[in-house]
């Protein structure tokens, strides 16, 4: 069973290909001339309407179906201080009545035409998507265009949907100590930066959201000149362009504010986040770093992507091999990098300690692997194997209808260009061992003070002296 998920809390996990984003567009002409035979991954076609709407079409003729997505270049990080959750609440209200559609009718109509639809909100973008038979493309476009400027939910719908988002928060976050831990660790990492707020919002601020606040956000950010239309499936670029021009073309552009991301200031103190909870029976340790996103620094981001593959990519990666197979102090260990952000990216080292292991020792063992990397470097064979594996990801990414649409959507919405996506495999292949060692030293070296120190997190069982940990909930259940 799948639950409706209208929020991309952990987007990386849902994606096929850890693709980048950057504004290294200036380089593309030169690169094209040098190597004219380079193959694109997806062969997407791109257009732009006079009103500013960007269009990406990824033809895929396997089945007579399409995925139609509209990505708005606005997300939770664009909210004003004190109204956290408004971007996500607005996303829910987009289904509650718009030009020509009654509350709830959007999704009902898509279902009745044999399609699926949903939406999700991230820190930097909000996306609405439908998958449906190709002969319904025009209908779907009309519906989506109708709510780009014509949202008008009745007030009672806003009130009941506010209860729904609070239930969503209870289900996703409040019911789960792991999610509460992740939320607090994130808040401690992104000091003064909007990424420190949860996408879904803080509960009290969510409860205080009104239609006026949503409407102000909608009017400020929703318009054709702040949107990207991505269509993947059994269509040609020309077909999509002609339809889009007819349907989205008449919409007027809106005056757009600048996207602002307050920076994390230089800090000194080392921060530790510790959550102890009676229901936790498996400890988790994590060390989180702020590192560049692709948008901020393409070269360093590419090196961090390869570093992720070397250190954290599966059962033969360095961290798993060292902590789980050889030292036998953890049941899982890895490194994950999220570089698809408009502002700062982040990188996590993590492990699940085996019972009896001191959590602090496991963090030390993670640090030690970074030290070994910096000290001993990367053998040529290990690097070339990692690069070969990453090339294969590009082929697998094509074996999907909605996957490529996702990749283009989040890449463009967080500052990448079409060519950054299409030629990702060549950019990755150019990463050297020195590039990787340089970013490891600059951002992860445990023996060097960082301008923005990492946050170390411990999610731990709460000690309960009289009972064994497992029977604690049962004891509470006795009348």
């Amino acid at each position, binding site marked *: *069973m799948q*639950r*409706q998920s209208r929020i991309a809390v952990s987007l990386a996990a849902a994606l096929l290909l850890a693709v980048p984003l950057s504004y290294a567009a200036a380089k593309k002409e030169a690169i094209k001339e040098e190597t004219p035979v380079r193959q694109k991954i997806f062969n997407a076609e791109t257009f732009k309407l006079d009103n500013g709407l960007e269009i990406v079409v990824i033809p*895929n*003729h*396997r*089945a007579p*179906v399409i995925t139609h997505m509209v990505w708005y270049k606005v997300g939770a990080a664009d909210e004003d201080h004190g109204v956290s959750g408004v971007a996500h609440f607005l996303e829910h209200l987009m289904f509650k009545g718009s030009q020509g559609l009654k*509350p*709830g009718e959007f*999704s*009902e109509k898509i*279902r*009745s*035409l*044999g*399609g699926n639809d949903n939406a999700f909100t991230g820190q930097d973008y909000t996306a609405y998507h439908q*998958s*449906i038979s190709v*002969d*319904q493309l025009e209908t779907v476009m009309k519906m989506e265009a109708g709510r780009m400027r014509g949202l008008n939910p009745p007030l009672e719908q806003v009130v*009941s*949907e*506010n*209860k*729904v*988002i*609070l*239930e*969503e928060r*209870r*289900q996703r976050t*409040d*019911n*789960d100590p*792991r999610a509460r831990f992740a939320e607090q660790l994130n808040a401690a990492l992104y000091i003064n930066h909007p990424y420190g707020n949860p996408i879904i919002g803080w509960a009290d601020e969510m409860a205080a959201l009104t239609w006026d606040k949503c409407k102000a956000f909608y009017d400020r950010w929703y318009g054709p000149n702040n949107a990207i239309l991505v269509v993947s499936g059994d269509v040609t670029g020309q077909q999509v362009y002609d339809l889009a021009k007819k349907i989205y073309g008449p919409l007027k552009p809106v005056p757009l504010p600048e996207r602002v991301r307050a920076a994390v200031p230089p800090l000194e103190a080392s921060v530790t986040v510790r959550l102890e*909870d009676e*229901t936790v*029976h*498996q400890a988790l340790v994590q060390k989180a770093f702020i590192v560049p996103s692709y948008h901020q620094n393409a070269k360093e981001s590419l090196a961090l992507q390869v570093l992720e593959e070397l250190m954290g*990519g599966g*059962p*033969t990666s360095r961290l798993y091999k060292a902590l789980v*197979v050889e030292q036998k102090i953890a*049941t*899982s260990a890895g490194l994950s990098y999220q570089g698809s952000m408009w502002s700062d990216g982040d990188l996590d080292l993590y492990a699940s300690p*085996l019972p009896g292991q001191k959590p602090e020792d496991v963090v030390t063992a993670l640090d030690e692997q970074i030290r070994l990397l910096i000290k001993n470097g990367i053998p040529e064979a290990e690097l070339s*194997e990692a690069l*070969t*594996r990453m090339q*294969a990801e590009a*082929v697998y990414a094509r*074996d*999907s*209808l*909605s996957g490529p649409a996702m990749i283009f959507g989040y890449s463009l919405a967080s500052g990448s260009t079409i060519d950054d996506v299409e030629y990702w495999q060549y950019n990755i292949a150019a990463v050297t061992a020195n590039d990787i060692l340089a970013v490891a030293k600059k951002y992860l070296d445990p023996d060097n003070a960082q301008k923005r120190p990492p946050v170390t997190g411990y999610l731990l069982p709460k000690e309960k002296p009289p009972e064994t940990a497992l029977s604690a*909930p*049962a004891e509470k*259940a*006795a009348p």
Partner: protein
Amino acid sequence: MRIMPALLILFIAFPAHARDKVLDIEQVTSPGGIKAWLVEDHSVPVIAMQFGFRGVGGALDPVDKQGLSRMLSNTLDEGAGELDSQTFQKELRDLSIGLSFGSDRDDFSGSLKTLSQNKKRAFELTALALTKPRFDEEPVKRMREANQSRIRSSLTDPDWMTARIMNDRAFEGHVYSQNSGGSLSSLEKISPEDLRAFHKNNIGKNNLVVAVSGDMTKEELATTLDNIFGDLPDVKPPAQAPDIALQNAGKVFVFKQDIPQTIVEMMQPGIDRHHPDYQLAQVMNFVLGSSGFGSRLTEEIREKRGLTYGIYSYFIDMKHFDGLQVSTSTETKNTAEMISLVKVEWEKMKNEPISEQELQDAKSYLIGSLPLGLTSTDDIAGLLLSLQMDEMPVDYLEQREDKIKNATAADVQRVAKELLDSNKMITVLTGNPENIAGSVPIEKLPNVE
């Protein structure tokens, strides 16, 4: 003008080329007699192969070694032949070969995904894993600890706890009540010898089912089947568990947890996938609760009242049991209201025929949405495998389409009357609900320690 939407829907539901096959499934038999279903697609140089062994699931686990079948699925790709665990995994990884195994209560399955350029080695490694697994001490211990860690992590997951209790109470006295993922102590007892014996006794050519999609021809598949599976022995068919009727029907169980929401699971008897009314039941359930937005449960409980983020009803298809289940969660104080609202929808579905609009919407969706789930080689191979595991005919998808097309509101109401019975529901609540009349407390999670 009013007739237009209806015509439009009819057009979608009954396309002019309706007699085209939904999927072009080829049946292949190898020179050695191994059968497979294939859907060729050469648009991407990728091959997806999924295979299963019928009747080799958690239902065969001894009570003191629950999780044995799961452990086999975890260790089968951890070293084979001359290759130890790390060498085997490294070769898979370096060639970008996805090879994994899985186990549920009824069956054991494997999944292989490879780039065409690496297929030769991918097939060799798969054959090696199936016929010469090593079960070395080190990876067996590592996988045991990973499973124990998974269980400890799940103890913070109220959905998982609720499902555990539901299985324990609904299938009381039957092997399905066991924890197919193992318990902390049962996993401790599973040795490499147990895995070796379980593998030898159960993984056989005569249990095998194979499905392939992607960059592969019929001729090539025929020889490939013998290369991968030809060395498997025939095994004695595993002893089958008896069928079971729903236990503890009508009872409400409460597992106290200090969380702000209550997790609600309700289950009543369902309908077998081979039953002639199965597709009518699917139409009914689309209207009732499987479709999310637009379904009666979502409209009444989420959209009108804001009581939950999600509510779904869905069929449980197992070899020896069929169920119809509702899953949702709500703020603690609304728990009793939630349960009674679900029952109201149960009665409504029995007492009144669904509207013509609901019927047409359900038909359009159930027929029209099928291709949306068949857009990758994995998706297609997965569907081909599940049809064969359930012993469906090769034209099942066409038969299904016909039955859905011909459904009437009266048919659906007849099935609703025969199937739905809220008095036969077993309910499990995890959280802090109050005012739940006659509820039975659960003191301790069963088969977890």
